[in-house]
Every structure is written in structure tokens, then in C-alpha cells.
């Protein structure tokens, strides 16, 4: 049975009147999350540049005061603040707005939305305080038996809880919408946001067990010992799909917003839905490929997770077609011609929001290929725990995800704040410089990684660092890219600050929403439901993880904690 499409505006008719009224109720708490993410980006990014300079054996830490001098404290801050807090706060804000716009109604529970803000901020503060008091120098992976202050684990619990609360609010809002529109299919933008939350909820169960059952009680002294392999595996249960939790909000923008921003239409809504649903199913049974080189994990389960990781490239390849085809349609409507030359019709130099997302996709493609290398059994032995992996991660998170979030911010902040975007040309320069900064830095990191440079290591003071001539030029590129990123990040914050404090805009704005290319839109019912796919994902995750986790929990030794910093 096919459902009626929701009423939508035809492309090119501009914002529907009254949309800003709908946003108004949720504007403030979304803005707080987004602005908080910018502050966190500044904190985490600052340490990132210091680390990049260290790869060229330039130690700027000694000029800093107090605990900021400590390399591994800064490294912990960089990872926790950027990978967990910056992304988490931005995603809570952005997905909330995607739901509000997609369903054309305010979030169902305003109190829950404000509680989400409070819990997220409290968690972030607990993390920042314990890290900068040097009580939690355990990096963002917090592998036991390195033992941090209980406040660190409690902060992680609160941040995870905040994401669950935002997910719950989205679900409650959707339920209310469904009651009012029983015969309509869920609009794509809201559907994609809900699928992202479903994927994340399933994926975050491992982290929740690690923190609540093991790490938090152990850090509080209620348990004397901890199981290092089990907690490490539970971390990667969540730790790999965490990447997809960063990525899918970028996909929400690429699929449901970007085509409208270039004047195009969405090529295929059915396949767009399928891609998000495949992530719900495939994201979680993948994490053991981070543990290929771990003792005590059976070969067969490592292979199974490797195969599942390969399967995830399928939805990403479909994305490469659908998103690019949608953008191409827009480029042709703008007068683009030819097989390749239509690319030039896109606003590469005039629209920072579009240019940033397109550049983010370019970097993302390279990271997809390096990701395949990482998850192959034998090539992983060359690159595991080297700077190669850090380069890969930065193409995906600093490149694809952060650049897309910045690009989104160029319309999101004007929309929410009621101000005009300040310095459009500066913003264009910003996204291009971020693109080149990431590309140059990642090139250096990949180079060093192939030359066996270990990751998360204070290289300036490593006695063996001078033995490897190849590390020098890779380090130079890494440092150069890191400096470019610092300048570009500073420019981004300047544009955002001057926008938020600048002149009021006069024309109305709405969230860009791509309309379908083909009419009528025929969507089978199985592409309008998330719960069966969630159940399938849960079953796959259980099959892929529970036997290994059970063996670890029952048979593997417990050890005491250490604070080695």
C-alpha cells in the first residue's frame, strides 16, 4: 500500500509563510546547543594545532601555563571535546531543527528539550573540569585499566544521556505528528533524522554498559577490578558506529537540504530512505575491525566484522550517486552543460554553504577508500595505530563532517538568530581553506603512518623519532595543515560571532528542503518504517557481538586500575 505524500511546496516557490513561527518555540534551546558546539570547536581545535606541530617536532606546549603544558592532557581534551562534545551538541541542535521543520511542528516536549540542554552542558562541564585538572588523562578512548576520576565517566554518561533525551523528544514529536496525520508518510527530512537517532541508540548501548556497569562503579571504588578487554570491546561496540552518528547528520543535509540549495531536486527518495535504514542495520556489527590486532578475540569474529564493515560501503556508494545526481540536476537548471563541465555551474565561489558541503564530500570520498584499507585484514597490520588512521579519521570528521557542519551553520545561524550572514566572501575563503588544510594535514598523516609513525605519541620527545627520515616531510605537511586549520577555524568563529551579533535580516528564511524529482513519489510502506529495521540491526549486533563479549565477561581476567599521568 502506498501512502499519500505530505503537502509540499513546489521547487522555487521559496519559503512557506509561517515557517519561522514554527521554529520560534524551539529556536533558543537549539541555538544554545549550536553556539556551545562552536565554543567547544575552539577549545578542541586549539589543541589539535599544537598536536599537528608536534608531528614536525615543534613543541609549543612549554609556553602554556599550568596543566595546559601537558601533551596528553591536551590530547585527551582534543578527542573528548571534538569527537564527543562538539559533534554531540551540534547534532542535538541540528537534528532537532530537522525534525521541527520536517514535521512542521514544534518539539512535543519543551521541558524535555531544556532538560536535554541542562544535562548536556553539565556533562560537558564535568568532562572539561576533570580533564583540565589532569584527573582524566585517558584520551577519548579511556581504555581501562587506565583509571580516570569518576567525574569523567559521569560526564560521559550525561552526554550520552542527553543524546538519548533528544532522540526521545524526536520520537515523541513524531508520534504526535503521526496521530494527526495517520495516513501520511513521514516526510523524508524527519525520517532521516529519526533513523539517525535509531542508529545511534542501538550503537550507544555498548558505551552505556561499559560506563554504567563497569567503569563508573570501578572508578568510585565499588568494584576493585576491571576487565580491560571487555571494556575495550564495549567501547568499540559504540566507537565505530559513533563515526556514522557524526556522518548521518551530514547525510541529512546532503540528501534533504543541499539539492534545494543548488536549485535541484532529490533524485530518488526511496533510495535515500533505504540508505538511512541500511545504516540502522549495518552500523553496529562492525567495531571489531578496530581490534584486529588484539589478543583474546577470535579470528572468525574479526573476519565477520570486517565483512560487515565492507557492507557499509554499499549505502555510501548509493549516496555517491543519489546526492551527486541531485546536485547535477540543480547545476543543469542553473545552465550547466556537458558530462563534467556542469560542475562549474555550481556556486563554488559564491555560496559558502554549498561550497563547504561539496568540498566535504570530496574529502569524504578519499576517507571511504582509506577506510576500506583499514578494515582489510592484512593491510590493517601496516597501518593499525599509526598516524595513517588519524589521517583517515580527520578526512571523515574534520573534513566531511565538520566542514559540512560549518557549511550548514552558514544558513542555520542566520535562520535561528534572525541576523544576516556577515562576510559571505570570508565564509567562502573559510570553507576552501578548511578543505585545503584538512587535505594537506591528512596527506602528511597518511605519509607518516605508512612510515610507521605511531599515533597519539608526543613525537618531539620520543627518542626514536629522529631515526626515521621519512617522518620529517610528513610532519611538515601535518604541521602546515594544522596551522591552516587553526586560521580557518578562527575565521569561521569570527564570521559566526559577527553574524550572531550583527545586523538583523529583513527577508524571511526557512530550512532548505529538497523536493522530489520524480512525480508521483511512490514509496513502499517498508521504506516508511524504522522499527523493523531497528529490530534487524539489534539482532545482527547481538549475533556479531554477544558471543565475544560473553566470553570476555565470563572467562577473561580482571585487573586493578592505574593512573600513569
Amino acid at each position, binding site marked *: 500500500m502506498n501512502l499519500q505524500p505530505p503537502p509540499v511546496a513546489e521547487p522555487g516557490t521559496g519559503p512557506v509563510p509561517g515557517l519561522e513561527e514554527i521554529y520560534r518555540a524551539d529556536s533558543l534551546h537549539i541555538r544554545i546547543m549550536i553556539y556551545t558546539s562552536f565554543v567547544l570547536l575552539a577549545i578542541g581545535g586549539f589543541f589539535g594545532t599544537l598536536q599537528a606541530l608536534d608531528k614536525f617536532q615543534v613543541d609549543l606546549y612549554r609556553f602554556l601555563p599550568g596543566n595546559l603544558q*601537558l601533551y*596528553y592532557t591536551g*590530547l585527551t581534551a582534543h578527542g573528548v571535546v571534538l569527537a564527543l562534545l562538539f559533534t554531540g551538541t551540534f547534532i542535538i541542535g541540528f537534528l532537532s531543527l530537522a525534525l521541527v521543520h520536517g514535521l512542521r511542528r514544534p518539539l512535543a516536549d519543551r521541558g524535555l528539550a531544556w532538560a536535554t540542554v541542562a544535562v548536556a552542558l553539565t556533562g560537558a562541564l564535568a568532562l572539561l573540569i576533570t580533564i583540565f585538572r589532569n584527573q582524566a*588523562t585517558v584520551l577519548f578512548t579511556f*581504555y581501562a*585499566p587506565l583509571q580516570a576520576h569518576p567525574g569523567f565517566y559521569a560526564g560521559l554518561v550525561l552526554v550520552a544521556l542527553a543524546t538519548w533525551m533528544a532522540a526521545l523528544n524526536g520520537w515523541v514529536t513524531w508520534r504526535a505528528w503521526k496521530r494527526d496525520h495517520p495516513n501520511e508518510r513521514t516526510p523524508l527530512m524527519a525520517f532521516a533524522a529519526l533513523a539517525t537517532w535509531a542508529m545511534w541508540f542501538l550503537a550507544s548501548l555498548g558505551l552505556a554498559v561499559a560506563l554504567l556497569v563497569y567503569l563508573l562503579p570501578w572508578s568510585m571504588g565499588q568494584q576493585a577490578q576491571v576487565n*580491560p*578487554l571487555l571494556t*575495550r570491546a564495549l567501547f568499540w561496540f559504540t566507537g565505530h558506529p559513533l563515526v556514522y552518528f557524526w556522518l548521518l547528520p551530514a547525510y541529512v543535509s546532503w540528501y534533504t537540504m543541499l539539492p534545494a540549495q543548488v536549485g535541484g531536486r532529490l*533524485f*530518488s527518495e526511496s533510495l535515500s530512505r533505504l540508505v538511512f535504514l541500511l545504516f540502522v542495520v549495518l552500523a553496529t556489527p562492525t567495531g571489531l575491525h578496530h581490534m*584486529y*590486532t*588484539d*589478543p*583474546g*578475540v577470535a*579470528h572468525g569474529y*574479526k*573476519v565477520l566484522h*570486517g*565483512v560487515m564493515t*565492507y557492507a557499509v*560501503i*554499499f549505502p555510501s*556508494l*548509493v549516496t555517491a*550517486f*543519489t546526492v551527486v*545526481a541531485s546536485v547535477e540536476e540543480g547545476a543543469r537548471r542553473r545552465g550547466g552543460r556537458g558530462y563534467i563541465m556542469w560542475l562549474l555551474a555550481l556556486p563554488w565561489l559564491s555560496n559558502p554553504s554549498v561550497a563547504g558541503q561539496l568540498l566535504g564530500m570530496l574529502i569524504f570520498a578519499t576517507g571511504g577508500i582509506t577506510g*576500506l584499507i583499514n578494515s*582489510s*585484514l*592484512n593491510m590493517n597490520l*601496516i597501518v593499525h*595505530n599509526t598516524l595513517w588512521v588519524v589521517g583517515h579519521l580527520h578526512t571523515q570528521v574534520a573534513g566531511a563532517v565538520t566542514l559540512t557542519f560549518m557549511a550548514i551553520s552558514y544558513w542555520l545561524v542566520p535562520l535561528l538568530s534572525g541576523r544576516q550572514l556577515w562576510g559571505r566572501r570570508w565564509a567562502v575563503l573559510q570553507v576552501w581553506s578548511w578543505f585545503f588544510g584538512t587535505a594537506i594535514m591528512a596527506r602528511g598523516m597518511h605519509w607518516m603512518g605508512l*612510515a*610507521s609513525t*605511531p*599515533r*597519539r*605519541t608526543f613525537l618531539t*620527545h*620520543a*627518542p*626514536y623519532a629522529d*631515526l*626515521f627520515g621519512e617522518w620529517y616531510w610528513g610532519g611538515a605537511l601535518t604541521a602546515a595543515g594544522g596551522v591552516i586549520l587553526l586560521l580557518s577555524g578562527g575565521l569561521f568563529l569570527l564570521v559566526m560571532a559577527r553574524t550572531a551579533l550583527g545586523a538583523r535580516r529583513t527577508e524571511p528564511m526557512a530550512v532548505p528542503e529538497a523536493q522530489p524529482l*520524480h512525480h508521483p513519489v*511512490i*514509496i*513502499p510502506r517498508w521504506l516508511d518504517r524504522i522499527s523493523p529495521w531497528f529490530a534487524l540491526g539489534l539482532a545482527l549486533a547481538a549475533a556479531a557481538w554477544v558471543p565475544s563479549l560473553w566470553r570476555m565477561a565470563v*572467562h*577473561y*581476567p*580482571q*585487573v586493578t586500575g*592505574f593512573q*600513569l*599521568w
Partner: protein
Amino acid sequence: MDIDRYERLWIVLSAAVLLALMLVLAYSIWGLDIRLIGDAGQVDPATVTQRPPFDQPGVYEEGPGKYRVVMVARAWSFQPAEVRIPAGADVTFQVTSLDVIHGFRVPYTTINQMLVPGQVSEIQYRFTEPGEHVLLCHEYCGVGHHIMEGRIIVEPAATAGR
């Protein structure tokens, strides 16, 4: 569900790429017989240095051209810190950690393993050329992580066994 004809072609191609990658993976497992490190036993890190083999770390000749290197890792050193083995020998490193998670990496080789307290890591390798190799820890293990290193000296085969 209607699918555009180019899109259908792309999906078929994507699935073919995926299938090809899976076949390569299968070939690497069953054709090349690549096996990832698995389960080499569990130990209690608190008492592991009181019992064989980890009570006496060192190099042991197990047969013609076969050596076993028993090592323990702790923050922030490997013991023994220097290992001498002959070129061309089949070497099995048998390593465990006494405290936190460490790494075991010899640059420019496929020796690349994690050391987890409570677990034994067994790593096989053959150094074909004489020379000196750095052994380094590649997992963060505290403030001295970057000074945690060792040396593997590969001697010409004739002088082996000293």
C-alpha cells in the same frame, strides 16, 4: 518503487564492487592463509612474572632456525629491552603486559599488535636481513608513552645463538 535506469546500473556496479571486495577478503583468509592474532591464553598480570615463561623473559632457541622471544611490557619499557636474533629465523614473540594496554610495533614490518593485561599476544615473524630495528609502544599508556621503546638486533645467520 521506481528506480531510474542509470541508478539501477550504479546499484548493480556497487554491489559488484562489494562482492569483489568480499572475494578478495575470502582469498586473503583461505588462499593466502592470513590469520589474525587470536587467543593465545590468559594470565593474571599480578602473578605472571612468578611463573614460566614470563618469569624469565629472553630469547630461546626452540629448534633449528626457530626462536621464541618471551617479553613483558610495563609502563614504560619492554623487558628485555634488547633482543638479538639471527636473520632468516622463524621467531615467535610471546608478550604480555603487566599493567595497562600497550602496543607492540616494529616499524616497516607487519609486527603490529596490542598487548592487553591478562592476555598473551603471540606474534610470528621472520627477519630476512641483518640490521637493527626499533620496537615501540603504539598505544597511549601514560605520560611516558613516547619513551617506551626497545631494540631488535638481527644478526647475520652465521653468528646466531650467542
